């Protein structure tokens, strides 16, 4: 056996190389970055103008709908993370990159971390953009600069959690187009939440119940608490908690899927 054949790079090197590829791939796809970043901003602009009158409903927590609606933009970025990550992984399967990797001593954990690096980079860019645009549009962050940093951390965790769901979708899809099919399903989770009104102001009973059981509500409310309330430990704990639970479950399933795919070779 030649020395080259015996060489097995450490997990860190494997992750670094795959992460670099994933980030470069994301950067080189403006067709993915632009809609994923702009679409939530367009919806923010339309909703904050169209629903501004709702701030006059008694009990509405702020007089700025831009500030209220800003939280939703971060969650929409999460949905794009699912589709983007899933499509990239599905493409890797279709174009043979995955099969070539099977010939190398790559570890599934490196593959998962590497694939999520591009998602993480895009998530950080989106979070920073939304905060900047939100502030320019008249929004505010009640928790101040430290709150903005916590907001970026929570938004990034959410993007990673959704990106991990994308890994599962990408592993199960036979073509990149198939990943698009889950887009409407994800939008159900977004819309059936407290995205447009606080839960206590939702009048329709069944909708309020659905929103209460929907984890997306708590992630939105975690972000929203930093924007509107300041430091709300319970809202932040629920937001970080649900995002972490989704991340752990999705990563476990995705890693298992990738492991079984690597074995099938």
């Amino acid at each position, binding site marked *: 056996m030649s020395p080259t054949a015996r060489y097995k790079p450490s997990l860190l090197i494997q992750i670094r190389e795959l992460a670099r590829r994933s980030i470069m791939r994301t950067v080189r796809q403006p067709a993915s970055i632009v809609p994923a970043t702009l679409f939530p901003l367009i919806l923010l*602009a*339309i909703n904050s103008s169209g*629903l*501004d009158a709702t701030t*006059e409903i008694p009990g509405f927590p702020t007089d700025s709908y831009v500030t209220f609606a800003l939280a939703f933009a971060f969650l929409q970025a999460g949905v794009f993370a699912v589709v983007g990550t899933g499509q990239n992984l599905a493409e890797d399967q279709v174009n043979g990159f995955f099969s070539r990797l099977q010939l190398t001593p790559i570890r599934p954990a490196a593959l998962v971390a590497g694939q999520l690096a591009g998602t993480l980079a895009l998530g950080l860019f989106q979070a920073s953009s939304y905060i900047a645009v939100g502030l320019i549009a008249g929004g505010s962050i009640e928790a101040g600069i430290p709150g903005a940093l916590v907001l970026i951390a929570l938004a990034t965790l959410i993007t990673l959690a959704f990106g991990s769901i994308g890994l599962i979708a990408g592993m199960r899809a036979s073509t990149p187009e198939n990943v698009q099919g889950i887009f409407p399903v994800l939008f*159900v989770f977004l819309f059936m939440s407290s995205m*447009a009104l606080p839960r206590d102001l*939702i*009048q329709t009973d069944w909708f309020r119940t659905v929103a209460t059981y929907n984890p997306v509500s708590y992630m939105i409310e975690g972000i929203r608490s930093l924007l509107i309330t300041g430091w709300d430990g319970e809202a932040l704990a629920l937001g970080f908690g649900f995002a972490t639970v989704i991340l752990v479950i999705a990563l476990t399933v995705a890693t298992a899927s990738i492991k079984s795919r690597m074995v099938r070779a």
Partner: protein
Amino acid sequence: MRRYVSVAGGLARRLLDLFISSPALFIPPLLMPIFFFTAFAGGLSAVDNTPGFDYPGGYTAFEFGFVLLQAAAFGGVFTGFSIAADFQFGFGRRLLLATPHRSALIVGYGIVALVRAAITLGVVTAIGLAAGMNVLGSGVDLVGMYGLAAIVNVAGTLFAAGVALRFRSLQATPLMMVPTFLFLFLAPVYVPRDLLAGWVGAVSDYDPATHIMETGRELLAGQPADFLAALAIALGLVALLGVFAIRGLRQAEAAG
């Protein structure tokens, strides 16, 4: 004329058969307006209490006015995806070779879009009625309302066909969706126009969808409506987008 109808009908039948055999192609677009209707009518029902909100049918009926147009317009747009796919994978080129009167192709796709929108609107209407939507308009009012939706569906199909025939690739799907999305969302989607604030309030006056949506809502609530003006706007859109679609067809022909 018989050959023209035969081509349009054959093409429509092929796509409708495809939808039956592959529900994955048909169901997501069907679900989209249902999600919007459920989320807006359910999640935003408190908007009813906003000072100045005076729509007599209540918030569910108010949102139905938006979803009606959305389902109609997107029924056309999603059919545009089918046109793009047919041309990307070579079927469209064979259709052009086999068809003497090629505008029959657009008519065929248009029939599919109408069937698609009719099914979606049927489902959305059933959900609205089950949710207790107030229908205060008369039968004639409702015929007018669904008639306007049908014309918007034709306009949506012609727009999407124009884009699809120019690009002949599924990569053009955002170019079909985003303008349609803006066309709809720059109208008074959540609250009446006089409650809109900021730039959307200013832009909505010039959005043709505003007048069609408001007329639909007035008809649903049995209020006096400027139906003829809305009809003229909708037919004007069809005329303009018809030219856009035919010119797209000529470009597809020239590309061979």
